[in-house]
């Protein structure tokens, strides 16, 4: 009996060892990404298939994460020691995580792809002390979009170039049934919009040397006031409207001005607008208007939408993640990926973007003016990453500042609760100062 029991135990132990060996050989590469377009997901499936074919011992587990919750999920995963192997980030997150020594450099990937082949702003934004800590999965820029036909009908100046002109147009185009301005209700996007307005009013969130919040500075106060004035002409219920829903609103003739939108909008226009209207002559793009405090001679800037792939320290499969990136940027697949959301997901590889055949793609030809706005902004160095004022800016505290909702809270304090911009800014300043001090970044 004893012998029988011993042999059962021994066999079970052997089987367990074998199973364990088998499992050890098979790795799972956890990839978080934020792209939602069904076409992009299909191409990503191709990337995964190709990668898994070349790396039969690795299984890729792709997880779609909403931008609005990426940050919290990432913090939880880092805190519990189980970050994804590869993830999308936002540039200001890269800088913040780099300063906290939480990122693995991917310089070898950048060099393998050809450093000179990567668009300069997309590359430089993640260069820290000679090492790259992120690489944009694609890039694009923001612009303001207007219903040019309605502007013409009302005899309004097109495009508006100052905040004052925008407000005049908003007033002229608004009716009780159809307010003119589209606003988005997700704090994540409210912050970005505010950042764009602020940058184009000569302001900034914090002092770059001391990290002291600059919320009580004049450009900041003016920006809060502008947001408030713009909201007077915004669609009903905007404080709870999701980003993509607002694209549909604009496309379906429910509003006439869409501030700070990204080129993904054109797909919604094609899908939802009346066919006779679904063209760039009706939905016309323009570079952002300027605020009253932007120094004369300084050009307005657009948001540089270049979310990078990054590897968090503590990831279990760093080399596999790097190998995955090399497959992701493989030219045939990458070109196909960027064309799933043309204009919005522009390639960071110059060999693709500058290829004359790329510009001949139907969507780019059809929406040429949109493409040109982006090219102009990039050519004239007028693109600044979200919540930053240039690709050179480094700011370690934007991650926490954005996560604390202090920016969107100020906007709501002014718009929903009717506080004065000065009062809201003072409240936000206090909260931000306390947060920065608590995090150990206070240098003032």
């Amino acid at each position, binding site marked *: 009996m004893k012998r029988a029991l011993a042999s059962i135990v021994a066999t079970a132990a052997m089987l367990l060892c074998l199973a364990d060996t088998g499992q050890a050989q098979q790795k799972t590469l956890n990839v978080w990404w934020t792209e939602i377009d069904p076409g992009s997901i299909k191409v990503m499936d191709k990337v995964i298939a190709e990668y898994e074919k070349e790396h039969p011992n690795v299984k890729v587990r792709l997880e779609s994460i909403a931008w609005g919750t990426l940050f919290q999920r990432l913090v939880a995963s880092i*805190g519990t020691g189980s970050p994804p192997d590869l993830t999308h980030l936002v540039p200001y997150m890269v800088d913040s995580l780099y300063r906290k020594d939480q990122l693995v450099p991917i310089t070898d990937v950048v060099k393998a792809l050809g450093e000179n082949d990567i668009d300069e702003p997309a590359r430089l934004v993640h260069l820290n002390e000679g090492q790259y800590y992120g690489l944009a999965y694609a890039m694009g820029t923001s612009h303001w979009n207007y219903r040019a036909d309605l502007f013409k009908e009302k005899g309004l100046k097109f495009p508006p170039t100052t905040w004052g002109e925008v407000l005049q147009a908003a007033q002229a185009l608004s009716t009780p049934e159809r307010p003119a301005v589209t606003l988005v209700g997700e704090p994540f996007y409210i912050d970005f919009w505010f950042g764009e307005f602020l940058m184009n009013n000569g302001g900034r969130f914090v002092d770059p040397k001391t990290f002291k919040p600059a919320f009580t500075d004049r450009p900041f106060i003016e920006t809060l006031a502008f947001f408030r004035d713009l909201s007077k002409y915004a669609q*009903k*219920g905007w404080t709870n*409207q999701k980003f993509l829903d607002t694209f549909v609103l604009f496309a379906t003739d429910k509003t006439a001005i869409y501030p700070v939108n990204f080129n993904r909008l054109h797909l919604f226009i094609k899908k939802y607008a009346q066919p006779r209207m679904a063209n760039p002559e009706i939905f016309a793009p323009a570079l952002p208007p300027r605020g009253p405090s932007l120094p004369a001679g300084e050009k307005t800037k657009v948001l540089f939408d270049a979310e990078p792939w990054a590897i968090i320290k503590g990831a279990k499969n760093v080399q596999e993640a790097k190998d995955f990136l090399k497959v992701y940027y493989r030219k045939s697949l990458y070109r196909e990926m960027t064309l799933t959301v043309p204009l919005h997901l522009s390639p960071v590889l110059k060999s693709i973007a500058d290829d004359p055949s790329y510009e001949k793609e139907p969507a780019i030809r059809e929406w040429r003016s949109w493409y040109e706005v982006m090219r102009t902004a990039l050519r004239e160095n007028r693109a600044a990453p979200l919540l930053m004022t240039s690709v050179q800016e480094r700011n370690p505290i934007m991650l926490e500042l954005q*996560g604390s909702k202090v920016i969107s809270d100020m906007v709501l304090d002014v718009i929903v609760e009717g506080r004065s911009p000065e009062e809201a800014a003072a409240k936000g300043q206090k909260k931000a100062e306390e947060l920065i001090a608590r*995090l150990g970044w206070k240098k003032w």
Partner: protein
Amino acid sequence: VLGYALIVPSLGLVTGLVLYPLLFNSWLSVFDKHAFLPIETFVGLGNFRELLGDGEFWASLRNGVVYAATTTILQLALGIASALVLHEAFVGRSIARGAILFPYMVPTIVVTIVWRWIFNEQYGFVNVGLAWLGAIDTPVEFLGPNLLMGTVIWVSVWQFFPFVTLAVLGRLQTVPLELYEAAAVDGAGAVKRFRHVTLPQLREVLIVVVLLRGIWMFTKFDTVWLLTGIEASGRYVQTLPVMTYLKTFASMQVGLGAAIGVVMLILQGVVVLTYLRLMREHEEE
């Protein structure tokens, strides 16, 4: 020895799943600790002092109390009423009994997406319907700052009242029919029978249901967060569990988040003990 050995697994589970998290959370609450960096400073009761002076904390507490109290009361009312109806004999009763559990069985994420769609200002079923009937000129902002609490309460009651129905219906089926017959013989009408026969019989089950639903609603995170957390207007219905999440994972202040957890535990402990004591006193009378 065998007796002690047999309780070891239970003891292990209680220690691992209840005691350790409680103690760890209490330990965290006296530190100023970053969410993932190895930065921690002992601050004693500093986090609690900070909370007491924080308007956001008091607003979240107020929202939480309003939310928990209102939803619990409405769930009770709806749950008891539906249980009484389902206790009666009628054609299709079995189907109705199954169907009423539907809201409780649907995953919260589905519930919140569907109700967000129904209440949407631009394309929501309710607003479109009201406009079509000519009842409104402009959309009602069910998800806007002013009505959001009402909407969250409505969705939560809809989602969780079947729990009360189930518990009450189960108890109703064990109430001896003789009690009703005797009451009828004594001339008691439907209302009196409910008040003097049904309610006393439901007493024990209602005590438990109020306790459980009250605790669960006060600590409810998923429904509130998924319905309101992503949008700016969410701050107008922010409850303590949501504030805990945001402090911990958005502002990365784990100590502060843990302190909110401790405060919630103490508050609930006080309320539960007071409630049970009152019930016991009432019973003794």
